[in-house]
Structures are given as structure tokens and as C-alpha cells.
């Protein structure tokens, strides 16, 4: 493969950047999943469905405001809030009554939620493919080593680290963030010093789902939004959380980078079997480091 005409420095760097921007979307979704997993100790199977709803909501909000740039920026703010609201309702009306039960019940509940949200999405938006344009300022591409690179992906490369820094500041500097981190380590102790554990759970769940919605809204201009995208993202997100280290936010970042970059290099090297590469990477990581790259909170 050395010196092959297809693999030039430009192609390699573009491939790397595309993988990196894909990793940013994955990170935003996965960090939410990881946060819920860390605090509630439950793999939230409905996380992918909320990501899908975020993407559909972004589509509808953009269309509501005429499909232009203003609509998109509003959608980017409102769609995650819509998703957060849905998760808050589900959490306060049903989920919060199950915290005293076995963990398997919580897992079954998130499965039921996934089934229900999946079908509700189909009812509201139908089975068609939807797509929206990025705002005018982010349309077109810039030249990197003489090859075109979409401006929107550049925007993702900025948003991803911003979200990571925001999450880090939130969890290490604010009081509620510190409580949530403490809850991830020792829930009983947090309850014992007089903090309402149920609300900590609710907060963690809603924040995690908000991030899923944000990821969905951010991804909507780059793909065709359709039902079924929940099943793909949730399995990727779980694998990323596992190779990164359960509940560890930086682990989610490392895992997303591994996943996104192997995926885009797979497309470059062997397009037909590109989807095999990230799974292969997961297998290699778990074989070498069975409990993930970084320290798990479990």
C-alpha cells in the first residue's frame, strides 16, 4: 500500500480531521451516557432514542423558522432542551419510583423507554429521511493541504472541546457537579450528609439526556435523519464508554477518538468493510486492557 496514489498526505490529514469531527459528536453523546452510568449505575438504553429525538427536533425547529440559519441556531439551543424536558417527565413520573428496586429493573425500564420513544418518534415524524442545511456561515468548505474540508466539521471540532471543558468545569468547580461526582463514588454517604439523593439522580439523568439531545441536534446537518439511528448510536456509545472506562468523562473522550478515527481510516483503506474497523479497535483495546483505557468509577 506504500506510495499508492490514493493515499497522499492531504488524504490522510482530511481523513484524520473527518474522524476527529465524528469523534466530537460521539464524545458529546457518550459523555452523557457515561455521566448517567457513573451516577445511577444503569446503562441507559434509551440514550440513543433521545439522541434520535434531538436530531428530529432540530429538524422540526429549523423548519418552523423557515429552514434558514436563524432556525438552525435556535434548534441547536431548543432541541436539547426539548429532549431534557422529555427525560425529566419520564424520570419524575416513572423512573424515580424504581430507585429502591434491583438494578435489573432499572435496566428493564430503560429498555421499555427505548421501545416507547422509538415508536413515538415514528408516530410523530414518520419513516422518511430528513435533512437540514447547516447555517450559511458554516456552508461550503475550507482548503486543507489543497483538499476541501467542510466548514461544519470545523465547527464540530471547536464545539467538542468546548463541551468537554464545560463539563469538566461543571463537575469540578460547581457545587452540584461535585455532589454528582461524590454520588458516583459513594451514594449512601451523599445521602447520609443530608442531600436529596433522588434529585441528584434526576439531575444526572436529565443532564445526560440533554447531552444526547445536543449530540443529535449537532449531527442533524451531516447525516440524513431517520428512525433506526438510535440503534446504531447506542451500541457505539456503549462500546466507547466501555473502552474508555465506565463513568469516566475523559475516558469517553479517548474512546470516541479511537472509534471516530478508526472509522474514518477504515473508509479510506477498505470502504466495503469500513464498519469493521472500530469494532476491531474495541476488541484490541479490551483484550489488552480489560477494564478500559482510563480508571472506571465503578
Amino acid at each position, binding site marked *: 500500500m506504500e506510495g499508492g496514489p490514493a493515499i497522499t498526505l492531504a488524504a490522510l490529514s482530511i481523513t484524520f480531521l473527518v474522524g476527529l469531527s465524528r469523534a466530537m459528536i460521539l464524545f458529546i453523546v457518550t459523555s452523557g451516557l457515561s455521566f448517567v452510568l457513573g451516577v445511577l449505575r444503569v*446503562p441507559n*438504553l434509551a440514550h440513543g432514542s433521545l439522541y434520535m429525538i434531538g436530531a428530529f427536533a432540530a429538524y422540526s425547529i429549523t423548519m418552523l423558522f423557515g429552514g434558514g440559519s436563524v432556525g438552525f441556531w435556535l434548534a441547536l439551543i431548543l432541541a436539547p432542551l426539548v429532549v431534557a424536558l422529555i427525560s425529566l417527565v419520564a424520570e419524575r413520573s*416513572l423512573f424515580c*419510583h*424504581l430507585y429502591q*428496586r*434491583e438494578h*435489573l*429493573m432499572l435496566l*428493564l*425500564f430503560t*429498555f*421499555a*423507554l*427505548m*421501545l*416507547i420513544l*422509538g*415508536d*413515538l418518534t*415514528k*408516530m410523530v415524524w414518520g419513516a422518511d429521511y430528513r435533512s437540514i442545511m447547516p447555517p450559511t456561515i458554516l456552508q461550503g468548505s475550507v482548503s486543507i493541504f489543497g483538499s476541501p474540508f467542510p466548514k461544519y466539521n470545523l465547527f464540530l471540532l471547536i464545539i467538542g472541546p468546548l463541551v468537554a471543558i464545560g463539563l469538566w468545569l461543571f463537575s469540578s468547580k460547581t457545587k452540584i457537579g461535585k455532589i454528582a461526582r461524590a454520588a458516583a463514588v459513594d451514594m449512601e454517604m451523599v445521602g447520609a450528609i443530608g442531600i436529596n439523593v433522588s434529585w441528584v439522580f434526576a439531575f444526572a439523568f436529565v443532564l445526560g439526556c440533554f447531552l444526547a439531545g445536543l449530540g443529535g441536534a449537532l449531527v442533524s446537518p451531516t447525516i440524513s435523519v431517520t428512525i433506526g439511528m438510535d*440503534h446504531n448510536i447506542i*451500541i457505539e456509545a*456503549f*462500546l466507547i464508554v*466501555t473502552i474508555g472506562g*465506565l463513568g469516566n468523562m475523559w475516558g469517553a473522550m479517548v474512546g470516541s477518538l479511537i472509534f471516530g478515527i478508526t472509522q474514518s481510516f477504515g473508509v479510506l483503506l477498505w470502504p*466495503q*468493510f469500513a*464498519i*469493521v474497523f472500530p*469494532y*476491531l479497535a*474495541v*476488541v484490541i483495546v*479490551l*483484550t489488552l486492557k*480489560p*477494564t*478500559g483505557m482510563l480508571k472506571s468509577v465503578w
Partner: protein
Amino acid sequence: MFGEMIRQKSFGVSVAIFVILLLAPSFLPRFYIYFLAVIFVTALLAMSLNLCVGHGMLFQFHHGVFYGVGAYTTGLLLAKTSLPWWLAFVAGPLAAAFAGLLIGMFCIRLSRLYFGMLQISLGSLIWAIAFRWYDLTGGDDGIHGIPIPDFIASTTSSYYFVLMVLGICLILLYLILKSPFGSTLQAIRDNPERCAAVGINVRRHQLKAIVIATFFGGVAGVLFVVVEGSIFPDLLFWTLSLEIFIMCLLGGWFTFAGPILGAAFIVSLRTFVGTYTEYWTLILGIILILLIFFLPEGVMGYNYRKLFRSRTQYSAEGQTE
């Protein structure tokens, strides 16, 4: 061992059900015969998974892959080669068991959730290959109209074939669970540390359980080909695995026949609610939530509570020490 099985109270009930099922084709319309055959296939699949999940406490998250490997091996051999049919039928379960051995050897070193995740990843590899290798597997379309041997080609004869194989497999699974191996497996589930301390090779037993379970999963895959005459990549997709996992939980995963009930419940729901509305998973979700809130014992069965109560007591005692 047979004698003990025959003395069981539930043995009479099982025989009665079996006789009714034998006579079913004479009074049921054709659609229901097909429907029952689908339940049998799914029930065998759920039973095979439960050997790992319920009796071995191994989080086999991607059992569907072995079902798919069995179905693909048999389907491809029937459709693309001129090998005798029985060779194709034997090759399916063997290929599934081999895949189970390979994947199991990778996964067995990891604990619980990591075990399941690595399995999902390795299983997704196989899914991706079947999904993309158009020349061999037909890609996302799969292969339809696989030539089934004449003597089991009709709905009724395939029904009898599936029923016979299911019956044999259930007896085998029962005998395996009652054998010293089965008892050891359940002992490992209840207390792996103590089992290791008395000199049982824990991982070796678990790996054996995985290979046996995947073998029977492969048998279910072969039966799927017999009933449907087609193969497609959804057989290997992880949502199917999740569905079978739920079947085990619904029916009661510490019981022998629980997964059969779970399978019958979900297949019926899909078939009958599915004809009225395309939103049958919504109904399934609502039923699940109702069960979780009002009938948790129905979901898990009594044994579940018993086991976990004793376990939480045990850990509570451990903490107070």
C-alpha cells in the same frame, strides 16, 4: 437420570402439552401452525441463552450472533453448494459452537458488563461482515428462497420437524442442567469465589456452558432456515439479542421453562398486535412498564427474589463485619 426426570410432577404436564402439539396440525389452520413453529424456534433460542444467563450468570449480551451463524452456515451451504442436506444441518450448530468457543475464549477473562460489551463488539464484527460481504451473503438483502429438502418443505412437515428437534433439545438441556456439570455451573453462579476455592476451574466451566449454549443457539438458527427459507443480517444484529435477553427475564430466568413462556409472549405480541398496528413495540414497552411497576414477581419469578434477597443479606453482613 431419566428415571428422575419421569418422576417429576411437571413431566406429565409436559407430555400432555407435547401430545396436544403433535395433534395440532389436524385442527389448527395453516397460519397458526407456522406461528407455533416460529414460537418453537424462538423458544429454543431463548432456552439456549438462559443456560448462560440464568444458570451461569454470564452476561451473554450478543447471543443472536450464534443463532445467525447457525442459520447463515446452513443457509449458505444449502443455497450455494450441492452438499447433502444433513451435512448442512449438522454444520450450522457446529459452526455456531465454534464461534462460541472463539468469542468465549476472548470474553471469559472479563467480568460481567465488560464480558457483555466485548461480546457485543466481537458479534458486531460478524454482523458487519455478513452485512457487507455482498458476494457471499447477499449483504443487507440476505438470501431468500433457500432450497429446503422436500420432506420438510411443507408447513406441516416443517412444523413436525421443528417440534421434534425442540423436544430433543429440551430433554438434552434438562439433562445437562441436572448433570454434575449443570450443578457446578449453578454453584459458580451463586458463589464463584467459593467454587474456585474448592478447586473448580470456574472459567473452564463457564466456557463449556457458552459452547453448549451457542451450539443450541445454532440449532435454533438451522430451524429458522427450515421454517422461513431465508437468511438476512438482522439475525445477527444486537437488537435481536436484546430481545431474547428480555424473553429470559420476562419468563423467569432462574426457572427451566421460563424462557419458553417469554418467547411465546413476545412472538405472540409481535404477530397479533403487529397485524393491527405497526407500533407493536410501543405496546410491548407499555406492558413492560406495567409489569415492572405492578408485577415484578411475574417478570422475574419467585426464585429471583429469593436468590437476591439472600445475596443482599450476605453482602450487608459482610459490610457490618
